Each structure stands twice: as C-alpha cells, then as structure tokens.
C-alpha cells in the first residue's frame, strides 16, 4: 500500500483571479460528482463487510488458517482504505468547489 506520509498531499487553497466569462461558477456539478463518489465509496465499504462474512466452513490447518485470515484481512483493508480515499476525494472536491465558485 505504501507509506501514506509519502503520498502527494492535497493542494493548499490559494487566492486566484476572478472567473473569466466562459468559466462555470455553479458548484452543483461538482457536488454531484462528490455525491457519486460517496455512493461508490459506500459500495466499497459494503463489499468489505460482505467479504468479512465470506463462507468459512473450511476447517483449515493452522498454516492455512493464517494464510486465509491474512489474505481476507488484507483484501478488506484494501477495500476500506480505498473507500476512505474516495470519501476523502469527495470531501476535497466539495471544499474546492466552494472555493473555486467563490472566486470573484
């Protein structure tokens, strides 16, 4: 997954010149994108939960049980982190939409 500290950080808000005439100032399309991202992130969380309830009738040996548990835990963690990343993007998008559309 990598070190989160090394990931590119979101751009800091800045002061920008006013909109040119052809530029959109309506945040609604951006909020819609953010809402769509939230919906899909929720799906990923649901998938992670479903995988946590995966059939477990197999009576594993100790080594097999470790391998299975590690594999499922890793997959669930990836899905949950994915959902977090998508939700974070939605939050960032809403914040930046408000900023961009507030430019005079």
């Amino acid at each position, binding site marked *: *997954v*990598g070190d989160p500290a090394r*990931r*590119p950080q*979101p*751009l800091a808000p*800045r002061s*920008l*010149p006013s*909109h040119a005439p*052809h*530029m*959109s100032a309506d945040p609604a*399309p*951006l909020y819609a*994108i953010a809402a769509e*991202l939230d919906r*899909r*992130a929720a*799906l*990923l969380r649901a*998938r*992670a939960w*479903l*995988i946590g309830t*995966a*059939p477990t*009738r*197999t*009576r*594993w*040996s100790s*080594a*097999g049980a*470790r*391998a*299975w*548990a*590690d*594999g*499922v835990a*890793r*997959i669930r963690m*990836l*899905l949950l*982190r*994915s959902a*977090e*990343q*998508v939700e*974070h*993007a939605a939050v*960032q*998008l809403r*914040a*930046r939409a408000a*900023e*961009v*559309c507030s*430019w005079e």
Partner: protein
Amino acid sequence: MGVTVSGGAESIAAHTEDLVAVAQLFDRAAADAEDVLDYACSWAVRLIVESYGCLGAQLLEGALEEICGPWSLPRLAAGSLRDSAAGLRFAAMVYSSSDDDVFDAIGSQLGQLGHLFQATFVGAATAVGTRSPSAAAQAFLTSDPDVVDSAAGLLLFTGLEQAVGSRYPDGRPVVYDLGRDATETVAPHDLTDLVDQLAVRDDTLAGEVSVAFVIGADGRRRAIVDVPGTKSWSPGRTDDVTSLSTNARALVGSPTTYERGVLNAMTRAGVTSTDEVMLVGHSEGGMVAVTAARDAVRTGRFDVTHVVTAGSPIARSVGGVPESVRVLALENDADIVPTLDAAENPARPNVTTVQFDVDTGTVSGNHGLGTAYEAGAAETDASADPSVRAFTDSAEGFLDGSDEDTRVFLITRKY
C-alpha cells in the same frame, strides 16, 4: 511422529464451493473498485472539472489525483481482488483434481501463476518460510488436503461416473503374461516390505501388475497381488486401463476393466479358489483392489482375505467388502488423494484406517509410495495399536515366508 488409527478418517469440513463463492465476492468487489476508478477518471468528470477554467481545474483535479494517480488504492484493490479471485478459483480447481499429471502440471503452472497466490496468500509463503511461489502454494495446498471434500462431491458424485461411463465405454481387458520377475524373490515380512514391493511395480509399465506366490511357515501357498495406481489421466478412449475413467468408476465402487484384468491375471498366474490372497494397491490400484476383493469373494472365484491400500479413496466402496476380508488403509494426512471420496472410511471391524503425517511439501510427494507411504508403513509396523496388530497377526501367513515366486502381467484395454 506417530500414526493415528481409527475406523474412519476424521470428519471433513472443507468446501471448494466456498472458495469459488469467495472468488465471486472478490470479483464483485473488484468491479466496484474499477467502477470508482472509471468514474473518477472519466472524460465526463474531466470535462466538468475543466469547465471551471485552467486554475480551477488544476485545483479540482488535485482532489481526484489520489484516486486516478499512481497511489490509487481502488486500482490496487481491484488488481489484488482480481488476482486473488483467480487464485481461489485455481486452488478450487487444484483441490478438485486427483490427477498426478495435473499435480505435475500444477507444479509448473504455479511457477507462472505464483503472483496470484502471492496476492492473497502471502501468509502461506511466510508460514513455510520460503520465497518460492510454487513451494508456498504447494505447501498451502498440502496443508489442507481435506478441502477436496466438496470437490469430490461436486465433480465425482454428481454424475461424473455416469458421464464418463456413458461417453467412454470401459472396454474389455486384454492380459499379457510378461513372465517371471527375477528381481522379486524375497518374500515380504511386514507392511513396509509390501509397500516397497508395490513401489517397484509402480515404476513399471502402465497396467502392469504382479502376482507373487509365497509359501508360509505353515507350508501353505498364498498369493500377494500388487496393483499400482494411475498412469494415464486421459478421460477418453485409451488402451491404458489405469486411465481416468477407471478412477471415476472405481471411486464409487463400480466394476472396471482394470479389476477384471487383475482377476484374469490371477487366474493366468494359477491362483485357485483355495489360495488365500492379499491385494495390495496404491491410489487407484487400492480402489481396484477393494472392488476386486468384493467381487472375487462374492462370486467365490478367489479367497481374498486381506487388502492393503496406500493413499486410496475407498470410503465409497469398502463398505461392500465382505466381513471375511480384512482391509488396512494407509492414509497420509498430507495426501489429498485419500480424501477425494468425500467421506470417512466406515468404522467396521474389518476395516482399519491408519493415518500418519508425512509432509514432503509437494502434492505428488505426499502421495508417492517411496516418498510418503513407505515411511507411513514403517510407522505402522512399529505401532502397538491393537487394530494394527490384529491385522498383521491375521496376515502372518503372507509375511512369514522366505521366498516368493512373482509373475508379471500387463493389462490393456480393448473396445
């Protein structure tokens, strides 16, 4: 290391359909992760973002950069999920197979598909302390041989035998007398010797069996018949009687051309209905030995008194063996083949199942006579278990001779 003796194998609680079900869950989750990627990185979203001007778009794209960029966790999750799903399906396929050749092929395929297993089962590699995907995957497979339970139930007891039988007629046996085996002249004295001699026969031609006459200490002549296992895994028409169609039939206790050939060879060797007979079989050969004993005793053709099987799934057929026949089943816990019948060996006075644990780390090694079952037989010989002792005591007449006269036969199939 010791042996476990029981009237039946431990209960089996593994299900390959679970592996496939989880693979489906993984695939659906991967589709959702890919869907997020497709949406966030789509032209439609980009067009909307770019409508906010150059600087606005730059700011907005930054919000989506993590999803669409090299640090995209949905992309990583989707890839891992797809790989893991493929790995689970591959594992289910492996568990579904009783095929030595398939095992060998798997060994090479695992090398190529190792990343699939690495994706989900990194823990397996860690557990066995190796970086080799092939070794790790094989260790993973061999650590849970019981998981073939449902595969056998799904594939073998839901019509495979009927399908194989209807599509590929079993044919009729043609038996060739290959003469005496000058190398097999010393009579066996314990289970280890029996398995060792079976291993010698197993290294010969497909369909080759032997009939050895031993004069016991009581002066009585007895016959020991060695029946090796599968050499051909062709499901189609083949003159090799050890082919897959024989496995499918023998597993559920149906008579086979291989069995008829064994009985024919015994007649050709001169075994009479008054000679006590011990049948010794490995894998498929053990299944054939069980059905041959059943049919020979029922018809009165031969007096089969003992059967020794090594790595044979006989739970479905051994119940039909008359009580006068004593059966000793050697089963390596790390060998997946004895579990292919998806059932426990019945707990009967004349059926003794001896379990031991020899894990070579490979599927074929755990099933091999020389690599696993000779060691298991030696452990069994050393066991003081009363059931084991009762069996070996009853087989004393087969094991207290000094010389043996071995005749070799080749059984082929004609249609």
